[in-house]
């Protein structure tokens, strides 16, 4: 009897001992992430141009917060406080599935790299805090400047807690379907007339035999319709008479633009292209060094005075953001270029 009592006491003590072994961990802090009060967005007013994919980077400083953080746009509203369904509801947008490399051999190959997904038109990247606006956002239903635009808040969370950043402003500009464009960013109206070719070398005038200046050539960019997917280059003289593109005999025709099925006539050269042009800000043979703009260059060589070889170049850095049949015309406003040998 007595023994049993002792044994049970012994058992209780053993149990207590086992409890002591395991109980110590309880008061230790849990491994929550840090959410620093010094984390902040360095930009609070965002002004994308509608009609293009726009990414706002380097706009957040995590400071002492632990990564990854999660971000969410909340309370997206118009400036007057009304709800803004045009920015909160999902729209079908074109997204890249595989990377654009510049070596694609056909339109189909390019299109195979893209697909359509439903996204809100203005999003925040979940863990990086970058903002992005999809090209589907157009000024016919999204409020563009001079409207005051939209106001929204951002919620930042991690396992250490949550913080709110308030009253970000989104003030989109109207679309500018092509660049270089002379359109006023706020009104969208063409204000001043002339766009000059960015690449212009060694071109002499046929009449005066002097070197022409780039300001004597005006670039006219025009969208013929919304349905096609071609890009046509034309060269015209001061009277709008066509100049035969074949005169630019030294041109590397396949690399003028990343397009396919080139059709070259006596009046124009056209390519089937995918939009936007360039497709990505990736340096390729069709773009400038940064990959930001497409580069179309037309060349010819001629024998100048004194048996000098003159290599002439005429070209343009440009971007096209909307689908359609586009036409880019180089208008020699003063005189025709001289193609013949001296």
């Amino acid at each position: 009897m007595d023994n049993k009592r002792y044994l049970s006491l012994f058992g209780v003590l053993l149990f207590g001992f086992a409890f002591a072994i395991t109980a110590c961990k309880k008061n230790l802090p849990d491994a929550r992430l840090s959410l620093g009060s010094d984390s902040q967005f360095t930009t609070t007013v965002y002004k994308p141009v509608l009609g293009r994919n726009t990414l706002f980077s380097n706009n957040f400083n995590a400071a002492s917060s632990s990564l990854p953080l999660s971000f969410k746009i909340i309370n997206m509203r118009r400036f007057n406080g009304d709800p803004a369904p045009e920015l909160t509801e999902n729209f079908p947008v074109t997204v890249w599935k595989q990377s654009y490399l510049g070596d694609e051999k056909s339109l189909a190959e390019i299109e195979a790299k893209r697909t359509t997904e439903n996204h809100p038109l203005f999003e925040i990247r979940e863990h990086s805090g970058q903002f992005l606006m999809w090209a589907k956002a157009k000024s016919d239903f999204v409020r563009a400047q001079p409207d005051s635009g939209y106001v929204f808040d951002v919620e930042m969370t991690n396992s250490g807690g949550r913080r709110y950043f308030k009253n970000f402003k989104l003030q989109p500009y109207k679309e500018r379907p092509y660049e270089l464009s002379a359109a006023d960013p706020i009104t969208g109206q063409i204000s001043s007339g002339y766009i000059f070719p960015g690449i212009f070398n060694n071109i002499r005038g046929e009449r005066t035999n002097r070197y022409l200046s780039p300001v004597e050539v005006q670039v006219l960019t025009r969208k013929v319709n919304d349905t096609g997917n071609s890009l046509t280059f034309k060269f015209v003289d001061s009277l709008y008479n066509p100049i035969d593109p074949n005169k630019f005999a030294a041109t590397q025709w396949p690399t003028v633009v990343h397009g396919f099925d080139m059709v070259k006539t006596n009046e124009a050269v056209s390519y089937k292209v995918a939009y936007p042009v360039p497709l990505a800000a990736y340096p390729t043979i069709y773009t400038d060094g940064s990959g930001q703009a497409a580069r179309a260059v037309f060349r010819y060589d001629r024998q100048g005075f004194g048996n000098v070889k003159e290599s002439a170049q005429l070209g343009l850095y440009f971007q096209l953001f909307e689908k359609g049949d586009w036409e880019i015309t180089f208008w020699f406003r003063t005189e025709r270029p001289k193609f013949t040998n001296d």
Partner: protein
Amino acid sequence: MRYLYIISFLFLLFCTNEKLMAQQKKIIVKGTVIDKGDKNDGTLPSVSILSGDPLKPIGMTDGNGNFSVSVDENATLVFKYIGYVTHKVEVKGRTKITISLNPDNNQLKEVSIAGYVSKTKETSVGSSIIISGKELQDVPVANITDLLQGKVAGLNIQQNTGSPGIRGSIAIRGLSNLTISGSGNEAFLTPTTPLFVVDGIPVDDNSSYQYGFQQAGPGISPISLIPQEDIANMEVLKDASATSLYGSRGAYGVILITTKRGNSKIPVIRYSGKFFVSAVPKLRSVIGGKGERLLRIDQIMTSDSSYYHALGLVNGTEFLSDSLNAYYNNSTDWQSYFYKTTYNQTHNLDISGGDQTFNYKANLGYFDQSGIQQNTGFNRYNLNMNMQYQPNSKFKLYAGINNSLGKQQKGSGNGLINNGVAEGGASSSLLPAPSQFTSVNSVLSAIQTDNDNKTVNVNSTVELQYEFVKGLRLTSNFNYTYNTATEDNFLPAAINNNVPSLFTYNSVKNTVYNRNLLAYVYSIKDKSGEDAHNFNAYVFTEINSANYKADAIKSNKGVNDHIRGPIIGVDNYVTSLGGTLNDFYQSRSVALAGNFSYNYKQKYVLDLSYRFDGNSTNGPDAGYTKSPSVGVRWNFNKEEFLSKLNWLEYGSLRLSYGSNIVPNGTIYDVYGKYVSGNLYNGKPTVNLDTARLPNTNLQPTKNTTLNAGFDLALFNNRISLTFDTYYKQVDNIFRTKDLSNTNSFKSVTTNEASMVNYGYEANVTARPLPSSSKVNWTISANIAINHDVLTHLPDGVRQFIYVDATTGQSILYRVGLNSLSNFIYNTKGVYSTIGDVPVDPLTGLRYRIGGNGVLNYFQAGDPRFTDLNGDYVLDNQDLVVAGNSQPQITGGISTFIQYKSFSFSAQGSFTLKRDILNNALASQFQIFNNPTAIDKNGNRILPQGLVPLSLYNYWLASGDNATYPNPYDFTRSKIVDPFRFAQTLFQEDGSYFKLNQVTLSYLINQKFTKRYGVNRLNVSLTASNVFMISNYSGPSAENVSALGRDSSGGYPNPRTYTFGLNVEF
């Protein structure tokens, strides 16, 4: 030991009465007493022999274990020896008897020391483990702590370096500090080495002697100056209850070292000599000569941007194209110039004798080890003596003096890391070997650098004990230690821009220590006359004073290599340096401590202690630190209701709680520092140094431990088990905190961080064979599991990053996680094809590094780094918490088998759950980034040797599923840096099992040896560092820094083979 003295003392008293007790029919019985626990079948001197009823001492064995007593024909002889099972034998008319005494393996009877007072383990409440000196003899080592590896659960020893005389890192129960200094491969964790107490004297084995501190001076630890042959036992105290009375430095645990004493009436002379070979471990294989040239050419031709550019590059690189040039047409094995197998020796002579009244010991030792790297080594000479005089039971005098001289050669390195050797050994095989006509700086500096270090340590102790009245004893202990260290380093002109350079250093340290202890013992007997209520109380004061000063002079302009001097500080005042170094200190500490312990029939034990500490480096506002501790113990096997269980030898439960401290910082952290400033009105000014803000509230680091333990022995001690679990909280961790630049001061040192270690330790010992068996077999194993959690950071922040500027291998401190987390890029394989690279759905661009250049985008063959924040750009926002550099499970296993004259022992240790950053492998891959050996400024650098990559699964062509990225793509490697150090690709599992030693020994027939006047002669063969089982791809999972970084500059651990000889005259 104490009982031995008492018994022998009693015996002496009875000796005088021997004749009176003598009776008729006596015969003379002769014989020998053999120690069955000694693997060499040694004899036991001074064994008490008793006979009669009641038992009375009738004699004792002499120094050779022989005895001769005169007894009745039918008498029963009883042989008693402390630490051994008492043996009874009936004479039955025999005149020659050989007795084997079995060691008493009951660990509870071991005498453990806690707080300068000896207790049996049965009545001690703390967690401690005793290692006998016998276990520490087989492998010759410069530092005795190397041999504790894997022997004590919870004592984590990593032999990070094979450099002779430098010891590896030691930590008891996990991390106790968070401070990291340096960066890259030279990032070091501030060590938290336990306090050593040698024969009752705390030894300052401070930070300049150990792994992690490379500074001026020889850096020979005082512990390295103790010869292993002179050690009687070592005890590791783990919890705060055991260490609390060691106060002012005991927070990181305490290791007690007891040296040998004389205990034989007839002087015993023991000689122990060992001859050992340190063998170079497997070094890395390299591609030599033509193979290297072809590989480089092939790499350029296949990986460059165009064929013609590649051709130009090959033709423009003379060591590739000019293969007929004798200078570039070599196949040199560079490592062979730096590493060699060495032959070493150690000798030790021990003379001891005496009895309880007077005993003495003198130990004369010589140790000589040359390192496997050229021009490195460690020598030690020592003469240690002690004596004890106890004319009666009231008075005791002990005096000891230990003299030692340590010499060390560090070669061209700092003793721990030798980057010169690492770089030289990694040179391209195409370069010519050093010869009569060519010289190579790295070889010259490794071999011709004249580095000579000397440390002299003199340690003298006097201890007096007097018993005023029965039970009340005063013990006064006084110790003076003098340590002087010098270093002379000479760089010949050839390797120092044609001017020889001379550096000389000397330091002096003296320590005075005094302890006065008043102890009182009292017992109340119960009705049966047995001691029932036992009280034991003591108080002591402790005073410690240390002064240290180091001076150095550097002469950068010697005359030539032959005239090494004169050293004057002013040959060129711009370049020459000299003066007292700023690590000068004077420190004082005082303590008052008390302990009270009570037990009831050794069944219930209560232990209370309290300690006040004052320290000169404490801030004036910090005051005295109070360290309480309390412990209880229940030896439940003594309970009546369990007494029927025959299989239960002993069993006990222990619970303890206590705290302890270790002082922090220097007096300058507390009071600030004045420095001389600019002239003002033509007069010099004195300013406050604005580098460090004084913190008058600087506290010592405090360690609070809660320990629960369980001891059990079953089946007549054939199985014994110890289990401990603990919760160790380290508060007031010392850190330097940078201040905002709006302050006048740059930084302040504070005690704001805290961490917790919790874990489990178990130790099992089994003797599978019965004691009657001719084979004596013991097997034991221990394991310790430790987890650490960071619980508080300065200013209450939740995380803090220690950014590593050199290799990017940053350390993350985050509250709630393990204290030191690697914060690096996460690599999840290699992109097999370009289609595997993630694409930004918005922009159509691939994942990239930094800028927008075409080469910045990831391609097939690049490492698959995790994009943590999903912005398709790899930058420092994508670092992840990836691993723990601290071992979480450590332990060891050992076995001992003895049969007749042969004995065999083996011991291994293991470390599990540890992450290692393999920087050596990363840098081997990185060499391929630069096939033409051009640095970023366009200058030719020394080409480095290429290692064969065939062992590694690396990416070669699109579609390959590889582990390692494409090593040959040198055009992009500067941008992508695929073999960057800071990535999980090079973070490997550092678990290992190492067979530390295997020993076979043989005792030569004593009949034979005695003919030549030799009492015992035993020979042994030992191999140490035998092999390592590990998943780690580097050479050794142990030879890495305390932060788990394996750099190629490390000093490999040699494998040694030892022939040992022990002779006793």
